[in-house]
């Protein structure tokens, strides 16, 4: 079953075609990586999917329902979650309260506390629950951002460059976490780290100049000459 579909999705910024006519299908349960050079339109595309920015044209369909006109907060309530590329936690609140804000949208009472502890344990931040989020290291703030996504228990989890700024060990833990989620949660992952992409993704979509350049399994993409020229380099 297809969880998410876009048809002819476009975004123009004053003549610049950031995203142009993207037809994208994401089946339920898949881990999909979205890659492409800087400025290829990856963040713009997922921002239109989750409603942060309005498209110039085209449609977004989630679980068979046209959600193009739906505001972001209502899309989130349908079961999307989006973690920010630039770390965007609530610096003045405690780590636990950050995750609780995410959990409280679907849970009440004691269940919130359980969901918070569970999400924090999964990213390894449970012992820092009472700490102020602004005091965390950059890598830990990235993990907190992911924990907030987990606490939302989404159908579709959109991760925008989640491993940026993480140490090697943290990246390994991140991979393990995604493998654990795979199958239950559909994941759309924007990522620059090729080892993360190649190891985690079921399929990869390559974006270049706002259009889909190629789509396929990691092996197919790895062997694709066009992709190598556009993105991986031909050295």
């Amino acid at each position: 079953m297809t969880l998410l579909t876009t048809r002819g999705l476009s975004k123009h910024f004053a003549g610049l075609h950031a995203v142009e006519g993207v037809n994208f299908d994401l089946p339920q349960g898949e881990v999909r990586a979205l890659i492409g050079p800087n400025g290829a339109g990856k963040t713009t595309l997922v921002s239109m999917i989750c409603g942060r920015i309005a498209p110039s044209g085209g449609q977004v369909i989630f679980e068979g329902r046209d959600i193009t006109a739906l505001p972001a907060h209502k899309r989130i309530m349908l079961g999307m979650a989006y973690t920010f590329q630039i770390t965007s936690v609530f610096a003045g609140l405690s780590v636990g309260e950050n995750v609780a804000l995410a959990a409280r949208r679907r849970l009440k009472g004691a269940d919130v506390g359980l969901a918070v502890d569970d999400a924090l344990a999964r990213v390894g931040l449970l012992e820092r629950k009472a700490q102020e989020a602004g005091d965390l290291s950059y890598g830990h703030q990235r993990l907190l951002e992911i924990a907030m996504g987990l606490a939302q228990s989404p159908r579709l989890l959109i991760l925008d460059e989640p491993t940026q700024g993480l140490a090697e060990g943290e990246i390994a833990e991140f991979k393990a976490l995604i493998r654990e989620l795979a199958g239950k949660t559909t994941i759309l992952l924007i990522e620059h780290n090729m080892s993360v992409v190649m190891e985690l993704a079921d399929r990869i979509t390559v974006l270049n100049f706002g259009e889909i350049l190629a789509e396929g399994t990691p092996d197919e993409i790895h062997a694709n000459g066009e992709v190598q020229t556009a993105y991986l380099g031909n050295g």
Partner: protein
Amino acid sequence: MSGGARAYALHGGVIAVLFALQFILPAYHHGNLARIMVLASYAVGYNILFGYTGLLSLGHALFFAAGMYGMGLGIQHLGLTPAPALLLGLVAGALVSGGLALLALRTTGVAFMIVTLMFAQAGYLTILYFGEYTRGDEGFVIQQAQRVLWGIDLSDAGNRYFAALILFGSCLMFSLWLVRAPFGKVLVAIRENEERVRMLGYDIFAHKLAAMVISGTIAAAAGASYGLLFGYAGASFASVQYSIFPLLWVLLGGAGTVLGPFIGTLFMFYLIDLSSGVTTAYMLIAGVALVLLTLFAPQGLMGELRRRVWRGLP
């Protein structure tokens, strides 16, 4: 003691001290404190929007005056007794703040400040325009006989102090409860990072609207009580000065702290009161004190206390 119990103990303790003070204070300070408590209630309402939600309104005098005139005109022209008149003031405040919120919340930042300021000015001019009913700048006195609430004469100093304490205590405890409740946490999160809150699935507009109505209604409760307790309603309470006052009090006391509005109001009131006894240039002393405070305690008195002593202070 848990953080919550400590917070309730501290704020309950402040109310208990204020209760006890009425028996020992000399008449002059007794009267001052009653006035400060009513004005501090106004600041508590302002703080919910400014301190906790991060929306800087320059038009809260409109809500204060809506409460004052809703109550005052109800007594003066509809012949209401104080209880329904107070209620009318609250309803007026809720309606006016809800209406203004629907318009002003379409803007953010500086535009929000300007829109609220303009509407408050329009409200002020409206009061002057309908001078036939409102008595304009001159205002009108609410007679002693009209200020008897359930057989209690509110013009009596003791009763007045007690009424002010009930108002302030309710506003303070409500504010403490609100900011510790999930709804209040969302407001703080909106202040910290609005876009992130939206992407967690919260309706930002609905939350800001609710915050503005709560804030405006508390301001109106203070305005209505002020008119009733001190027996006067006048257009000067709707002027821009009364929009700036709560901002100053909250900044001095500590924006985003529950006790800050009271501390700020108390500090500013006595700063002006004491310095005017020393020199006629008392605003100079007040100004210097404000500059010093902004330099050395930019987060206000309670904000500084939170930074240095008690990180979890609500």
